[in-house]
């Protein structure tokens, strides 16, 4: 059954990076899965999808990039927030020796997944990458067995991309599967790296969503008509290989194809 809107209170707003904020709410969603998302409603400003960064309590990481996200980051403890959650399909229950690969603020759902690995006693390795050190989120308190960071400019961790490091990690001791979330070009490279190493991967996709529950069809991807909101946002690497538009284009609010 489709979740209804619930109104919760913000209990904490913490710095997740220089600009991004970790929002904590006074509610839990014990039945949620890492990788699932919420439609967050700001009355008068609209409703947008955000991945869960934690479910008990409910947490989100928000980078202020537009009017909506800036308003979210400006919320203060005690203020109300209304969400529809959990929506979509998340990551599988982790197995083996997972490698988590997160790009910038896109790493948010992997924090939830790393915490689940920790709870299940699964040894996961996280690779968090960003252009610069100030774009990395929550690196000082990232859950899971081991964590490393990369930056394009070398301002923190290894200079280079998280995918460069993923290739090196997969070339070493046998590890997998790979779970990733971040910009689509990065996900494309992650999928290729996992494929070359013969390792399964799951990727969290993003498309313009309107309804969030698989009714409007706006987030369907070509050519299979996969609905990112209902069949995803997390899909297997094998499923992703069938999506011609993956890494190529998306649709805008009117449904026009625009390059990524």
């Amino acid at each position, binding site marked *: *059954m489709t979740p*209804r809107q619930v109104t919760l209170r913000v209990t904490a707003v913490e710095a997740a990076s220089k600009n991004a904020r970790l929002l904590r709410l006074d509610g839990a969603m014990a039945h949620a899965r890492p990788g699932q998302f919420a439609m967050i409603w700001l009355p008068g400003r609209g409703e947008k999808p955000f991945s869960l960064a934690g479910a008990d309590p409910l947490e989100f990481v928000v980078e202020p990039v537009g009017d909506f996200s800036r308003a979210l980051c400006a919320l203060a403890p005690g203020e109300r927030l209304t969400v529809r959650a959990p929506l979509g399909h998340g990551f599988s229950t982790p197995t083996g020796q997972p490698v988590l690969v997160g790009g910038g603020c896109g790493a948010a759902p992997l924090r939830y997944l790393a915490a689940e690995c920790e709870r299940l006693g699964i040894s996961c390795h996280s690779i968090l990458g960003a252009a610069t050190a100030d774009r990395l989120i929550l690196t000082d308190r990232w859950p899971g067995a081991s964590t490393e960071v990369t930056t394009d400019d070398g301002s923190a961790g290894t200079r280079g991309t998280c995918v460069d490091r993923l290739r090196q990690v997969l070339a070493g001791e046998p590890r997998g599967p790979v779970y990733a979330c971040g910009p689509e070009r990065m996900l494309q490279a992650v999928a290729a790296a996992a494929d070359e190493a013969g390792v399964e991967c799951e990727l969290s996709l993003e498309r313009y969503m309107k309804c969030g529950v698989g009714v*409007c069809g706006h987030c*369907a991807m070509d050519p299979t*008509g996969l609905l990112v909101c209902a069949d995803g946002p997390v899909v297997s690497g094998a499923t992703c290989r069938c999506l011609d538009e993956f890494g190529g284009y998306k649709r805008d609010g*009117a*449904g026009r194809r625009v390059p990524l």
Partner: protein
Amino acid sequence: VDLSVELCGVRLPNPLVLASGVLGATGAIAARCLQAGAGAVTFKSVGLEPRTGHPGPVLVPYEAGWLNAVGLSNPGIEAFGDEFRAARTAVPDGVLVVSVFAHETDRFEELAARADALGPELIELNLSCPNVADEFGRPFALDPAATKRAVAAARAGTKRPLLAKLTATAPDIVAVGAAALDAGADGLVATNTLGPGMAVDVRRRRPVLSNKVGGVSGAAIRPIAVRAVWQLAGLGAPVVGVGGLSTGEHVAEMLMAGAAAVQVGSCLAEEGPAGFGRIAAELASFMHEEGYGAVAELVGLARAETEGRPA
């Protein structure tokens, strides 16, 4: 049993048509619905210009369905051509219905002509969207005269089978249907979402939908749709029944009230395109149990039982 039906001269492998505004925003998902068992698919309504539609929330559930105010978002008829061709290529023998909307009567001719050029089996005129009144004014389908003008304009732009999508919110849907047929429509579709309705979030103390009001769909409107189909079937033209149906027996009910085919929408929210296969199997199973060999045998049965007396 034979599930195929004829609608305005077009053969459909089964009577289940994807309703406009649900799923059919792209060619790929329309094709997926056909592959999942839809007898035909209606694309989301398209206009001459691109539209982003209303900001979110655009959809809110209530106990028996949904309120929606997506606001006719669409890429415009030009870019829509790519979506149409993608569906045609993916499922070459699929029955495709292009739905068009306009807020000015004279635009229907150009729209119908441009939809016609794409090569759909049927063209549907959305005369009854209940969630754009702030911009467009009252839906055409509330009024017989406005409906007649819009349908006549579209008729001038195409020779393909033309369906007029009406609303049971109209004070006299039979008069509206008669006006549409008089202006050259080949068939009628009833009903669009009703209302509009409103949902207020009591914690946030304001309407949930950004548009404040939205069309009401789902199980709650089915009895009203059945009544509308019954009334319109008396006009003698093919009627497509739509509104809250979610099982094979609901389809049979619409057919018996006089529908030549049905449209499926809200119920797909719970199960996605797979709903088509399930409902078609349920209809086949019902027909087998009751001893029907073909869908056409069901059409208008309830009318015959009561000698077609007006509702």
